[in-house]
Each structure stands twice: as C-alpha cells, then as structure tokens.
C-alpha cells in the first residue's frame, strides 16, 4: 500500500506543479473553472486511452512511437503555455485592474479557456497513463488487493492534491505587482523545461545525434530521484546529465520568450484601438 501511495504521489506531484502554476497565473480569467473541469475530465479520459493504447503507440516509427508521442505532448503543452504567457503580458494592464478593482472582468476571448483546458489535459495525460498502467498491472497480477491499491492511490492522490493546493494558494497570495512578474517567470521556465524534456525524448528516438552528448553530471548536487530534483525536472526541465542540444534548447526558448514578452509588453497605444475584437 505504501509503495503504491509513493508511486501515485510522485506522478500526481508532477501534474499539480504544472497545473497549480497555470491556474494561479490565470486567476484573473473570469469563470475559468468550467475550463478547468473540462481539462481534468479530458485528462482523465485521455490518460486511460493512452494507457490502453500504449502498445500501439510504442510500435509507431520503428518502436520510437512513445518517444515522439511524449515529445509531441510536451511541445504542444509548451506552445499553449507560451501563448498564454504572451497573452497575459498583453492584457497585463486589464489584469492588474481586475486585481485591484474587484469585479472588473478581463476582456478574454476564448484563447485562455481553450489554453487552460488543453494544458491541464496534457499535464495529466502522461503521468495519468503511467498511474493507470501501474495500478492495473499490480491489480491483475494480484501483487496487491483492490482495497490496498485503492487506499494507497487515495493517499497518493490526496497528498499530491494537497501540495498542488498549497502551491496555488501560495502563488495567488503574492501581491499584484510581484505576482505577474513571478508567474511570468515561472511559466517561461515551465515552457523551457517542457521543450528541454521534449528534446530529450527526440534524442532518445535518435535525433540530434551529434548534439546528444552529455555536458555534465550534477547528480551529486541535485539528484533527479528526490522530491526537489523531481520538482526542478517538472518546473525547469532539470536533468542531472543534460545533453548539448537540451542546453541549447533551454537557452533558445528563454531567449525567444524574453523577446516575445518584450514585444508583447510594449505600450500598445498605436495598436490598442484596433486590437480588441479578435482577442
């Protein structure tokens, strides 16, 4: 039961880090809980489907299907989070107004809702599939009884959710000015981290051969198997033994985002009047 709880917690933990930050960052988006609900439902169904079709997914691309699939999930999630980040920057003034004057709605359009749903679905997909594969395996072989597995996974889920709620509540309490700064940076790091992990999967599939050599081993400073290492992996794509292409991807993504945010944050006086309807 204990080992079940630990494994479930570990996977849920990775989900809540991403979801917690995204939810905190989009707190000014009104009535987003529907989108959140759709995201969770979609993620749940999606991860069961992924678990069910793991074998078929693996067989694609000469056995490298799982790697491409994971990379695809990570890149798509990164694109949507990055997009949301830029959107937030462009609506920063409205969002600040929303925080200070209660009830003032942010002119949103549909992008943030779609983005929230999709990011949650994708965050749940991979880890959720792992959880369901692990639990079904344990159950069918009779390593653990249904009751033990249910109790163990319940503990894992509750503990994971608890961490997520703490993270969310902690983030949304930060004062308005610092809030936008901090969540922007966190989201930018999450995006870069996802790109780095996605690149890692592409390397595993045999791409970037010339740039896949390991640059260093920092596992003596921070190992990936403890909770801090795990957090850093989910947040910034930390790996103790990064490859050259991963470092390049990290720097390039952060550079791209910094530039995009700078452009998006420019005073939009010239544009502002014409800008509203499409967004």
């Amino acid at each position, binding site marked *: 039961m204990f*080992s079940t709880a630990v*494994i479930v917690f570990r996977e849920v933990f990775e989900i809540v880090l991403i979801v917690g930050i995204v939810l905190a960052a989009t707190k000014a988006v009104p009535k987003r809980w529907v989108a959140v609900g759709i995201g969770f439902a979609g993620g749940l169904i999606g991860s069961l489907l992924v678990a069910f079709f*793991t*074998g078929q997914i*693996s067989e694609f691309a*000469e*056995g*490298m299907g*799982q*790697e*491409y699939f994971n990379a695809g999930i990570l890149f798509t999630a990164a*694109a949507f989070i990055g*997009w949301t980040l830029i959107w937030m920057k462009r609506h920063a003034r409205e969002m600040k107004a929303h925080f200070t004057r209660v009830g003032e709605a942010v002119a949103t359009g549909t992008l943030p809702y779609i983005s929230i749903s999709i990011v949650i679905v994708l965050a749940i997909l991979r880890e959720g*599939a*792992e959880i369901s*594969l*692990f639990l*079904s*395996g*344990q159950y*069918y*072989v009779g*390593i653990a009884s249904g009751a033990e597995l249910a109790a163990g996974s319940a503990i894992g889920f509750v503990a994971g959710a608890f961490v997520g709620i703490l993270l969310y509540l902690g983030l949304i309490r930060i004062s308005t000015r610092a809030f936008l700064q901090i969540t922007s940076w966190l989201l930018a790091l999450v995006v870069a981290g996802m790109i780095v992990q996605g690149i*890692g999967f592409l*390397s*595993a*599939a*045999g*791409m*970037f*051969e010339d740039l896949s050599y*390991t640059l260093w081993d920092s*596992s003596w400073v921070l*190992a*990936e*198997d403890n909770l801090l290492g795990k957090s850093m992996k989910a947040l910034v794509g930390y*790996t*103790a*033994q990064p*490859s050259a292409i991963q470092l390049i991807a990290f720097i390039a993504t952060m550079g791209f985002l910094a530039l995009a945010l700078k452009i998006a944050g420019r005073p939009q006086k010239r*544009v502002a009047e*014409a*800008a509203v309807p*499409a*967004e």
Partner: protein
Amino acid sequence: MPRDRIMRFTNRLAVIGVIGFLAISSAPALAMQDVTIVIKDHKFEPSTVEVPPGEKIKLIIDNQDSTPEEFESRDLNREKIIRGNSKGVVLIGPLEEGTYSFFGEFNMGTAQGTIVVKALGSVDGEEANDVEVSSGSSGGAQEKDEDLKRALDTGNSTVPVPLEPISK
C-alpha cells in the same frame, strides 16, 4: 494587428513543423548492435550488460511479465513504458566508457541493472557471457553474426567480438 501576429505565430509554427519533419525524415539509417534484456519476475536478465564504447546500441527490452514496466535510466536519460508480454526498443549510445545504471520504475525493489561500457579488448572472464547479441540484420552481416554467436556460445571470452556495426 493581432490577426497579423497570430498569422506570424502560425507561420512560425509551420516552419518549426517543417524543420522537425525534415529532421525526422532525414535521420540517417543507423548502424546498430542489438542487445536484448529480458524482464522476468520484475528482474532484468541479464542485469549487467556490457557494450563497446562509441557505438549506437539498440536495447530490446523484452518484458515477459504480464505487468507493464517502465524502463528508466537517469544516467542515460531514457524512460520507456513497456507493456506486459511485449517488447520495447530503447536506443542508446554512442557512450563513453563507464557504468550506467537503469531500473524498472514500477518495481524498483527488484528491477535494477547496469550497462557497463568498455572496450571489448579488455573484457575479462565470464562476464562476456552476459551479453546477449541478437541479429537484426540482413545479407552479408549474417555470417558475422554467426561467428559472433559461436564465439559467445563457446564461452571463450578471449575471442574478440567483432566491432563492425551491423547495418540495418
């Protein structure tokens, strides 16, 4: 203006997509050595695998348990779920000499193993038998495979295992 931005963004995505596609489709046909690792009763067999340095290796993880397993190695930056009673491929290398550990994430208590990378000239003693080399090749490489198998079957570890990569 925002429409323009969105257009530019989608264009950029398209360019990235095309580059990605080219990168995938132009990946060279790789010369690779196959090494099979069996998972049985939540253990790896063999649990120690020796491979030569500087080579690309195709690990075939043959999960003979009915439960799924996640083959994971932090040293190699690899993770892959393998369903029960099925096989999965993990590409590794080229690697420098050294020891690289791997484990099964769903059964970490038992499923542990290491990949030892060293020049085959320095193979010592009975460990050479741990390397299970299977052929995944065609044509001219066949003979070499048989030589290699014979060498391994005799257990005579002083016979140098040919290093030429088997072309796919």
